[in-house]
Structures are given as structure tokens and as C-alpha cells.
């Protein structure tokens, strides 16, 4: 068990950002199966799988830089909406180029993304399509809930830059659990879903591509694999992807609720807490300043039900569904939690807040050689900061003013010229004044809770 757990840390998101592998060699001929064995739907599916080339802006060197990555996607609507991974495309994308199955290239734009489920939607440029006289087909979802281990599945995508690769395997597990982790620039992911595990070969670049049944129905979006392991791939189930796609098409983002509870499996604690079996989930931790803390919830409490709906968190794989139940409450609404503490059972009403990422907006101030990210509420909480005012330094460029003045990655700039940085705009306006007329700037920095004053000189 221990060994397996430690392996979990090796699970990585599968975006592929090396130079494109050179296409080479001759086309391999004739599969073992005859053409009649291949479902018509499968052929259509192949036509709707695309390669995504994404150029995105990064700020981690203290300057704006462009990074190129390659991933996969699948067209899901007749308007040309492509479902892919959030770690393939994010709001910092400068250009998204789609290569259709017929090798034609079309630009696309981000519609919306949801790093919590690692999904994103981009839309093909309709104008360019009609100018070039291009058409496409789209795929359809299957029901991931009906899957059983052992069923044959195919993964389609662009592993290591090899476009239009099809690999075959089976469903190895239908509800693999991973603890919430981080993806891309540190965005939280994986808290609200379990994963389909498959032994179909999945490699970096398969990210965002579909996991499909022999009939071509999409039952998952290939998202993760173990580096260094063989045949251990993981896909976001279609039932989750279907909801997220609909939500992103409607609102361009997914709004979720937050209570501030970190849940843990009850496992064999039922006896200790004298619970009926299969009811309740352990409250492992309560976020300071969260609705749960304000309502008086405490670590060690057992959450029994949410608005009368009983929860069962005996095993880790049951946690994402409970977390999703909390997240799907409407923001600002009151939910009634039934909670057991010791031998006492109580009813606590909580008002939900909007769930926010710990990763704030990023930018770079190039004349200072300084890349920053706005501090989020949860970073402030995790780091035990007084408030969320300020920006965290994500990169400094050597020999530029910020670096020369001694600012380093990880520093938190709380004030500039004695102004509190309540928003990124405050800093942006100070910076534009500096750009217009370079002058010394006094920065107040929090470095591991030590106060450091720094003067940035032109």
C-alpha cells in the first residue's frame, strides 16, 4: 500500500512540450483486423480527433516568454468546439493551431477552461474554415458510468508529437482515486472526479485526446500517466467531461462553491466514532477564515449529511463525489450540515462562498525583470499571511533592476512606495509611471515572514 501511495506522486499531466518528433519511415500496412470489423462510428471519431499546437505566455523568468506545447483534442459539437485538457490550453495561450485529421490547419480560440477537472474548450475559427472550404465531423459522448473493467477501449491522440496515433487497451479500473494535485502553473486539479484507468498506451502529447469505445463513443479524456511506468494511463470520465463541456459552452467557466472543509476517508474509524456503517466522512482539516470555520466546524468532526443528503466517505475513492456535491451547491446559498462531534450530533447552517484557485493572475514587468502573480485568498491562508494583499514573485531576470536590488523568486511584495497592493492594477499603474519616468521604487517584501525593504533602481 505504501509503495503504491508513493508512486502516486509520479503521476504527471501528459502535455508534451518538446520539439515535434520528425515524421519518418513508411506507412505501416494492414492491421490484423479486417476493415469490416471497424465500426463506422470509430472512423468518424478518428476524423474528429485533432492535434493542438499551443503557444502560451509565461512569466517565470521575469519576462514575457513564449512556450510551445503539443496536445490532443476532440471536436464535440457541429460548431467546432474542441474538448481538450486545461494543461494543454489555458487563458495565457497566445495562439492555438489545430491540425485536423485531414492534415489541414486552422486556428482556434479558447472558449473556457476548468483546471479543477483539467478540461478546456477551444473553438475552431469559423471564418478560416469557410475561407479554406474545410469541413469536419464531431464525436459524441458515451456513458462512462456503464463501463466495466476489462472492456476494450482505444486512445487516440498525438503522443510525443506523433499525430493521429491510435492505441488499444482495456478499462483497468473505473474509479481510480488520486488526491487533489497541481497542474501547469500550480493550479489545483482532480478534487472533484475519480479517473478511468486504462492500459492503452498513453504518452505525453495524448493529453486532451479521447478514450473511446470500439463504436467511437467518447468515454473519457486522456489526461495523465505514470512517467516511467507502462500501461498506466488515466482519463477524466465522460460523465464529468459532458457536464464541464456544457458549463463552459454556457458560461465560459465553471462556478463552484466552497466551504473550507478538507475531507478524509473514515475507513475503520467508524468504531471509534460509534457510527452506523457507510455514513459520514471525516473532516481532516478546516481552512482558517472559511465558512466552515466561521460556523464552528472543527477537524475531527464527522460530516453526516449535506442538506439532508447522507454522505458516505468510508473509502478515498468516495471523496471526490462528496467534494463535488459541496461544489455543486449554488454560491451564497445556505446549506445545512449534520455533523457528529464526539457523542453529540448537531446541525450547522453554512453559507457557501465561491471556490477560487490558489493561483492568481500573472504578469511580468519587463523593465524591472520581474514576473509576479497576485496572491489569492488560499495562498494567503496556506502561507499564514495577514491578508491577500500583494504579489508573489514567480521569476526575476538576472542583471535586471529587481534582481540587482535583491528580489528573488518566492518573495511576496506587499507594498510599493508604501501603497498596499490590493490588486494587480495598483502595481501595474506604479509600473507604468516608472516606465514613463524611471525613478527609485521602495518595495516592502515578505520573505518567509521576514520584512525586507528593497529599493529598485532604474
Amino acid at each position: 500500500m505504501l509503495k503504491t501511495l508513493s508512486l502516486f506522486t509520479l503521476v504527471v499531466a501528459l502535455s508534451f512540450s518538446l520539439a515535434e518528433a520528425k515524421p519518418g519511415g513508411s506507412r505501416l500496412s494492414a492491421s490484423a483486423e479486417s476493415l469490416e470489423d471497424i465500426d463506422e462510428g470509430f472512423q468518424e471519431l478518428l476524423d474528429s480527433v485533432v492535434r493542438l499546437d499551443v503557444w502560451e505566455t509565461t512569466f517565470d523568468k521575469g519576462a514575457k516568454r513564449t512556450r510551445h506545447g503539443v496536445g490532443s483534442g476532440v471536436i464535440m459539437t457541429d460548431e467546432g468546439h474542441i474538448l481538450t485538457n486545461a494543461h494543454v490550453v489555458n487563458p495565457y495561450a497566445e495562439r492555438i493551431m489545430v491540425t485536423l485529421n485531414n492534415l489541414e490547419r486552422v486556428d482556434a480560440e479558447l472558449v473556457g477552461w476548468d483546471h479543477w477537472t483539467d478540461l478546456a474548450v477551444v473553438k475552431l475559427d469559423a471564418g478560416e474554415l469557410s475561407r479554406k472550404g474545410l469541413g469536419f465531423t464531431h464525436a459524441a459522448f458515451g456513458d462512462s458510468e456503464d463501463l466495466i473493467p476489462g472492456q476494450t477501449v482505444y486512445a487516440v491522440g498525438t503522443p510525443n508529437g506523433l499525430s493521429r496515433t491510435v492505441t488499444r487497451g482495456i478499462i483497468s479500473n473505473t474509479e481510480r482515486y488520486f488526491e487533489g494535485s497541481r497542474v501547469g502553473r500550480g493550479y489545483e486539479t482532480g478534487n472533484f472526479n475519480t479517473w478511468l484507468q486504462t492500459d492503452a498506451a498513453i504518452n505525453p502529447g495524448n493529453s486532451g485526446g479521447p478514450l473511446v469505445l470500439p463504436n467511437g463513443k467518447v468515454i473519457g479524456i486522456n489526461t495523465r500517466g505514470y512517467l516511467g511506468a507502462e500501461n498506466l494511463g488515466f482519463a477524466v470520465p465522460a460523465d464529468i467531461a459532458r457536464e464541464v463541456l456544457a458549463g463552459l459552452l454556457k458560461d465560459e467557466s465553471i462556478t463552484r462553491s466552497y466551504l473550507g472543509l478538507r475531507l478524509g476517508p473514515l475507513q475503520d474509524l467508524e468504531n471509534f466514532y460509534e457510527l452506523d456503517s457507510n455514513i459520514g466522512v471525516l473532516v481532516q482539516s478546516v481552512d482558517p477564515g472559511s465558512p466552515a470555520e466561521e460556523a464552528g466546524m472543527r477537524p475531527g468532526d464527522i460530516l453526516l449529511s449535506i442538506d439532508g443528503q447522507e454522505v458516505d466517505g468510508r473509502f478515498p475513492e468516495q471523496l471526490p463525489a462528496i467534494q463535488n456535491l459541496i461544489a455543486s451547491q449554488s454560491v451564497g446559498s445556505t446549506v445545512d450540515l449534520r455533523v457528529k462531534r464526539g457523542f453529540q450530533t448537531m446541525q450547522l447552517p453554512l453559507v457557501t462562498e465561491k471556490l477560487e484557485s490558489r493561483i492568481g493572475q500573472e504578469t511580468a514587468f519587463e523593465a524591472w525583470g520581474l514576473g509576479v502573480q497576485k496572491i489569492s485568498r488560499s495562498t494567503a491562508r496556506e502561507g499564514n499571511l495577514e491578508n491577500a494583499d500583494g504579489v508573489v514573485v514567480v521569476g526575476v531576470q538576472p542583471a535586471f533592476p529587481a534582481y540587482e536590488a535583491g528580489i528573488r523568486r518566492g518573495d511576496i511584495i506587499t507594498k510599493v512606495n508604501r501603497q498596499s497592493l490590493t490588486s494587480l492594477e495598483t502595481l501595474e499603474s506604479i509600473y507604468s509611471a516608472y516606465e514613463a519616468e524611471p525613478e527609485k521604487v521602495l518595495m516592502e517584501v515578505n520573505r518567509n515572514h521576514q520584512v525586507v525593504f528593497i529599493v529598485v533602481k532604474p
Partner: protein
Amino acid sequence: MPSKSLFTFGQVAAACLFAFLTPQAAAEPDYEAMFDERLKSVVVVELFVQRQIDREPVSATGAVIDEEGRIILIDSALPSWFPPEWFKDIRVRPPGEDVEGVPATYLGQDFLTGFHFVQMDEGAENYTPVTHWGQAELKRGQFLWGIAVMDKQWHFAPYYLSGRLAAIEKIPWDIGFTTTPATSPGSLVFDEQGRVAGWGGRITIEEKILVAEDGRQLPIGLKDTRDTAAFLAVDTFMEQIQRIPTEPIGDPRPYLGTSGLQPVTREVAQFLGLENQGAVVVSDIIEASPADKAGLKSKDIIVKLDGEPLPKRRPDFIVTRHFDNEISRHAIGDTITLTVIRGDEEQDISITLDKQPKVLKEALRAYYDELGLGIREFILLDGVARRELRVDVGGVVVDFIKPNSKANTAKLEPGDWIKEIDGTKINSFAQAEQIFDGVASDTGKAELVLLVERNNETKVLRVKLK
């Protein structure tokens, strides 16, 4: 590795030979005789540190400071975060001789310098106090020589080293640097006449650039195995050997109640209108501390202490040490005046120093072998690390976990702050001790449920007892 040591030793011998071959106008002082005499002021202290289940042997070179056989050791010679009763079987022996040595007693650590003091229980008459040799007047460029000491397999063989005085820097004590290593840590440096020039400091690191075959350059530091080019200048050394603690745990220390002092750089000082002086910024104020009561605030910039501007020091951070030392030189109950800049205003704040709350070595500890769990009282340092800036937090932290023990299986980790045991909130060390004592005697108990805080998050952990 013996072969490597041999090589190094050979090189040292060769270096000495060179020194003798250099033509000298005046008659060469008799270093052989001076060396043998002054070796009587240098000793080796051996002991072991008894932890929960492990022992760690320690040996260090020290200087004999008086007729009663007291010895001074440098701060890094012993792990100062452990309680002194963990230092066992202390013995003192002359360098270079294969002897058992004589038993000795730990006298404590001076809070100002961090230096440790030990006293031999017998045989002091065989040694010569360092004060016997007189004090050198230090001048840049002068010739200095010293006694260095090998490691245990060489029976701590002493050998001669020499160099010239390159510089003296206030960091914040007067530290002398020689052109080449002239002694080893805790041993002595002398001038041409054999007067004491200083006392060997920590091993110095030589800064080098490693140039790879492809031209890539990597800055690296080369650390000697046992020699040092740094020494505490004799005037300061003679002052500091007076500071023998009255008890092994150390003397009560004056306390201001600030945390995370940071230096102000030249640019920032100029920005604040300060010329030719140092300044320190206060990061945190401990609740209910003397600083708090007097109204000192986080982010105040201290520019003067008792009317004296803080000095400039290099590197910048030395000014914070200077400030700490100046505070530590005061007596508990003394009132000091800090001049601080807050916003755009300068103001004086008078603070009456109190007694320092418990430090790590003073924390109460207990070890439960059955659980493989060592616990320790929660002290101010733990509070500062967890942003609980007060003394009265109470409670316990995990100090030690025995590998493959019940505590280890439950995934407890050193540093975990135990907040609840079986649903009972833990407010003091005594309370936790009582509960764990009870667990040890209760054979019917199947498990222990702990609520711990780790990295600002809480976890519920179960220790299976059966």
C-alpha cells in the same frame, strides 16, 4: 579515508619544510620549542550525545582557560539544541597521545557567544592556561602560526600551520583571517614571539569556480577537512573566556521580544534619509513581550540603540547580529531606548528587558519506547515557526519518531504539533505526558486518535496500539 589523510598530512609537512627553507635575515625563532610549550594549552574533548535511541560520538578541540582546568569550545562543537544532560561520558585528553584522558564536566553554553565550557575533573596541573602566553598586538601582514589538530584515528596529532594576517573584520566580533589556514577550530594562533593572537574559529570555506571541460563555470566552496583561516582576535577572546555560565543549562538571557530582524541595505537607508549608519527592520513582535508592551511595532525600522546609531557592517546582515549582541550584553530588568522610524516619523521607545522564554534545550521532553514516540514541550520557537507569536501556546510537538514503530506506522512526523489526543484538547506538556503515561499502562487500549497540525493543516492520525 586513511590514504587521503596521509596525503594531506604529507602536504602540510612539505609546506612547513618550505617555510624553513625561506632565507631569513634575523635568527629564526625556535618554533619547535614554542610549539611544544603552547601545546599544553590545547586539549581534545570527547563525549557522546545520548538521544532517544541513538548515540552520536563527538570530539572537539578546545583551549584551557584557567588553572582550574576549564576549557572553552567553539559554538558548533556541540549540538546546542539538546539538553545538557544528553552530553555523556565527557573526557579530556592531550592532543597526539594515545591515552584515555580524564573525566570532565559540562559547564554550559554562553548565550552571547554560543561558546561551550567544560571543566576537567582532575589533572588540570598538566596544562597551561592560555592567559599564560600574553597577548599579541595584531597588525595586518604580520606572521602568525598556530597549532592544528588531526582527527581521532591520528590520536588527534597536533601539527604546525602558519600564515600572515590578511584582515580583521567585525562580524560582529573581531575575526582575524590568515592568508593560509593557521590553526584548526578551537585551537590557538600565536605571533612570532609566541603570544596569543587568537582562537581558531569555524572551518573557513574557500570560494572557487569549477570550470567544466565544455567551459561551463560553477561557483563552488571548498571546505578544509580540519584547518581554518579564521580566528577570534585575542582581545575579544580574552573577554569571552570570562563568560562561564553559572549552570549547565546556561544563564537567564535578556529578552526583547522581536523576531525576524532584517538589515536595511545602503539603498534603502538612503531612501529613508540615513547616512553612514546601519538599521534593522523588525518583522514580528511577540505578544505580551517587553517590545510589545512598550509599543514597538512590526515593520518599525530601528536606527539607534540607547542614542547610538547602529553601525554599518559588512555583509549587511551582520548589523542584526550586532544589535542582538548589544541587547544580550544588557542585564534582565535594564531599560533600553530604541529610536525607530515608523512611517515618516522618528520616535524613541523605552523598553524594559525581561527574561528570555524557554529555548530548545530547556524544553521538557519525554520518550515512549512502546510507541516509538518522543514528545517535546511547545516553545516560543515553535510558535514563531507556526505564526503563533506568543509564549503561552502550550501543547506538545513530536520530537522524535523511531523507525518502524507504532508512531511511525501511524505516519506521525517530527515537528507535528499534537493538538488533541482522543478528542481531548492538549494545552500543556504535563497533560500530554499524563495521557501518554496512561496509554503505556493501559493494556486494553486498541488505538489512539491524534489530531495534529502539520504545515498549517490538521490531520487525524490513528496510532494502532495492538
